């Protein structure tokens, strides 16, 4: 069963430019890189968080700590799924107390993943504030959640699927909409 790529949203160059802009926006809004930590949400946000950290380092010469967060156990649909998703690793080796935390994910859709991430983070400590950076905001929010930094705003129909493909996963880098 092959799902066709209906439209190419961003190619590699487009993704790079968007991430560079987001990195600058993070530094602008927070007036520098002090106390910033980046947490990528498994699985889509982890590589993006690392890339943002390396861009921040290029621009500001500061190493922002990067961690990964698995939200599987905080999902709101565990009782209704037929099979349980296998959790990935949560890897936050640094203290998040009083830090400016930037959550990073690839696609913002209903907002339920971010709600789960917020609940999960609260069990790790109390950041000074939490901001959200996403590569694509495709609308259709089901909860009052919004991103602070957006790579691309993409109006979609609910039935479509947005796929972010990154070089770290061994594929050609691009963002596409998949159709039936």
């Amino acid at each position, binding site marked *: 069963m092959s799902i066709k790529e209906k439209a190419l949203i961003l190619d590699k160059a487009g993704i790079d430019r968007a991430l560079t802009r987001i990195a600058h926006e993070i530094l602008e809004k927070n007036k520098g890189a002090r106390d910033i930590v980046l947490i990528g949400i498994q699985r889509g946000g982890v590589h993006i968080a690392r890339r943002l950290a390396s861009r921040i380092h290029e621009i500001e010469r500061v190493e922002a700590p990067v961690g990964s967060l698995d939200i599987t156990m905080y999902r709101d649909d565990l009782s209704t799924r*037929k099979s349980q998703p296998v959790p990935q690793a949560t890897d936050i080796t640094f203290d998040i107390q009083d830090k400016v935390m930037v959550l990073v994910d690839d696609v913002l859709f209903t907002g339920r993943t971010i709600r789960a991430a917020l609940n999960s983070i609260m069990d790790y400590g109390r950041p000074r504030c939490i901001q959200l950076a996403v590569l694509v905001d495709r609308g259709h929010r089901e909860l009052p959640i919004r991103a602070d930094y957006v790579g691309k705003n993409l109006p979609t129909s609910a039935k479509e699927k947005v796929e972010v493909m990154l070089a770290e996963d061994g594929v050609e880098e691009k963002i596409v909409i998949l159709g039936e």
Partner: protein
Amino acid sequence: MSLTSKDLLGIQGMTADEITTILDTAATFKDVSERDIKKVPALRGKTVINLFYEASTRTRTSFELAGKRLSADVINISTSTSSVVKGETLLDTARNIEAMKCDMIIVRHSCSGAPEFLSKRLKSAVINAGDGFHEHPTQALLDMYTIREKLGKLEGLAIAIVGDIAHSRVARSNIYGLTTMGAKVRVCGPPTMMPRGIESLGARVYCDMNTAVEGVDVIMMIRLQLERQTVGLFPGAREYASFYGLNQARVERAARHVLVMHPGPMNRGVEISSEVADGTPVILEQVTNGVAVRMAVMYLLSGGTNSEA
């Protein structure tokens, strides 16, 4: 990925994929027990009953902690203080509990097959915490998790299980699990306690412990129940210890990196010398891993099966 059945009754019949899924899931749950807030909401609002017809410290506490760390409501029923002393049958007890709408029942019983009996008649998920001489699946899973964590793999390892194999559900579950995962299992013990036909499960039988532990990667000691002496299965604790006890000399016959494991509780000086017991931290790690593995099992069994029940 989910387990193919609504219950966990035994390792026999589980595929290597299912076992691997449980072990992988357990690794992430281990992290939960190490953080400051040792709770995740995965089983929030679910009700779990520990129905233990036999005494237990480790297993029951481990299941209780596992449930609580998943945010479930856990109730312990130990039958010595329940209506079982008034003669209530197993099925009536379980049905009454189910009438209070619980989602998961964890059963330990002296009759082999009791959990399966319940699983066929109850809608709740049933987890076998040890039934008679049959199986103790979560113990085997935590043993396999421990071995995989310390030695990096299970396939191809040489593992010696030593002790009263005939009466050991821990040994049976481990034999099923380790052979499914591709390890080479040796069993060793007094001939009076070695079940006939055990080779058909894929284990090699040794009567001499010194040969059995030669070069192995893991030595798993099984507890000797001292009551077995009164029925003539072994002459005495001292003679048992000298032939089948794990002492430092026997540990040194195994591989350099050998893991010494014991499901607990230990009879110091009988199946394991104090020197060896205190020199091996893995035995306590088994207990830590037990909570993580049980969390994984409870999580994987708690899926949306309510819809088709």
